[in-house]
């Protein structure tokens, strides 16, 4: 089966999803071509096991993000079944490539099997859909749902000069309010909700976050009521996250919050109400106030 993987980079290196995409392609029985937008991380892509070749597409249009321009420049290299990451940019480029080729796209797959059969969550995780696709299609894969391919290979790299007309022009950059790690990039997230009492108390969560390299997230209640940045919000109208560890502190576990975090690998809940719905999804629940539990957490982590 001919499979093309669209690499995703962050800065000058590859995003870990790229190696997961290759792993998924190999499991389907393909030895994929990896297309690298703008060429960032092409050398690294060539070392992923199972890659048949790397196509580094370079052009002016890759200096800022315009999904339409990127798709125009990349589509000629995207043959057969196309796999991309279900990241914000990945979803957009993938949708546009599918429309350009006139083939269907299925987003956010969590499992694939021969044929191709696709499993993916729908209704924000309240149900699961399995579908089968005939012919070529574009599929985006959820981060951390597929095993990464190992490294050690040395695939050839072709460099293709291909730009496209850019129609989205950057006018002004607005800096982040804080330099903290973003929830969509973190492998560990500690989130606070209304039970934290007031915005200032988030500093306690930040201290824990700094000890374990975690990002700090929030429920919608505190984003709306305490004016915290929306970029911190996890849930239906915030971010969908799948870290290895999600620690929910003073969050009740409303269905819209669960929609954004229930597929985290491990969930810890700290809540003073033993009947809080968050305990229904927690692997480890701690019935306690945060005032008692957070200092204990800090000393236990310090003792590791």
């Amino acid at each position: 089966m001919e499979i093309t993987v669209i690499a995703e980079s962050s800065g000058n290196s590859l995003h870990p999803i790229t190696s997961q995409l290759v792993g998924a392609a190999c499991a389907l029985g393909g030895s994929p071509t990896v297309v690298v937008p703008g060429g960032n991380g092409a050398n690294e892509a060539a070392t992923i096991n199972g890659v048949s070749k790397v196509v580094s597409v370079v052009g002016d249009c890759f200096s800022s993000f315009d999904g339409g321009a990127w798709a125009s420049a990349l589509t000629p290299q995207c043959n057969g079944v196309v796999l991309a990451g279900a990241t914000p940019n990945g979803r957009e480029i993938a949708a546009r490539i599918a429309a350009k080729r006139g083939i269907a796209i299925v987003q956010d797959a969590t499992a694939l099997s021969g044929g191709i059969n696709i499993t993916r969550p729908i209704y924000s995780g309240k149900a699961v859909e399995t579908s089968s696709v005939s012919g070529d299609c574009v599929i985006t894969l959820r981060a951390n749902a597929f095993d990464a391919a190992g490294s050690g290979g040395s695939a050839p790299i072709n460099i293709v000069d291909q730009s496209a007309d850019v129609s989205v022009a950057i006018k002004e950059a607005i800096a982040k309010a804080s330099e903290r790690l973003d929830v969509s990039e973190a492998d560990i997230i500690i989130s606070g909700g209304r039970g934290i009492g007031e915005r200032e108390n988030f500093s306690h969560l930040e201290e824990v976050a700094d000890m374990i390299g975690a990002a700090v997230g929030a429920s919608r209640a505190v984003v709306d009521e305490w004016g915290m940045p929306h970029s911190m919000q996890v849930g239906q109208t915030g971010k969908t996250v799948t870290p290895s560890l999600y620690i929910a502190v003073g969050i009740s576990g409303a269905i819209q919050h669960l929609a954004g975090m229930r597929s985290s690998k491990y969930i810890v809940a700290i809540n003073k109400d033993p009947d809080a719905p968050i305990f229904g999804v927690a692997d480890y629940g701690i019935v306690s106030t945060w005032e008692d539990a957070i200092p204990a957490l800090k000393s236990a982590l310090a003792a590791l």
Partner: protein
Amino acid sequence: MTIAVLLKQVPDTTAKISVSGNRVDEGAVAKWSMSPYDEYALESALQLKESGVGDLVAITAGPARCEKLLRDAAAVGADTLVHVSVDNIGALDSTQVQALLAAAVSKTGANVVFCGKQAADTNSGSTGPGVAEILNAACVTLVSEVSSDGGGFIATRPSAAGQEKVGVNSPCVFAFDKGLTEMRRPNVRGIMMAKKKPVDVWSATDLGVDLGASTVTIEAHSPPAEKPPGQKFEGADSVPTVVSKLRDEANVI
């Protein structure tokens, strides 16, 4: 100028989703609502309309129940209502949905499209960029704000460094993330006017779209896999135990 807003009717986010006979049981959905991000798109489009940019056409594709959604949009200020009538919207693949919506947008003459970043049922995020591709339009996704700027538009979207403002000219599509303001509530006058507003009902044939067959076949819907029940501990004294389990059982710290 005409602004088209694509609005999808979905089960309310509080609604329970049940599965029967391998399919999500739509009949059991207690409440249907406008998809949350579409509300932000609509509110932002209303504000743009009020700034004098143009009139607003609300477009939905789906079965008969979706007319209610169009009336809700009219009650807050949509000028024209378009219902692309499709009985089983869930069985269409992305190319079919996009072909219908793009054809409907073209037929209204709109050259600016507002939609949600992803619908609350499909959770896909394919429609905005796909429709843009068909219309040969620019697309900006994850937008929180759009304003007009001379002949073009300025949109705010996230960037690696925080946020950025980008400029685009029509034709263009904006796929909304959470916007700056919640959707306004309709007033009584709006609700009364909306009842009388005509709805243009268009079929695929009216739009000149040959749907063909879906290339994606839904094999089954199922409830999410049950997680094994977690372990629950009483009191802050249990924290060290949990931390060592996170290290030794789960291997995550």
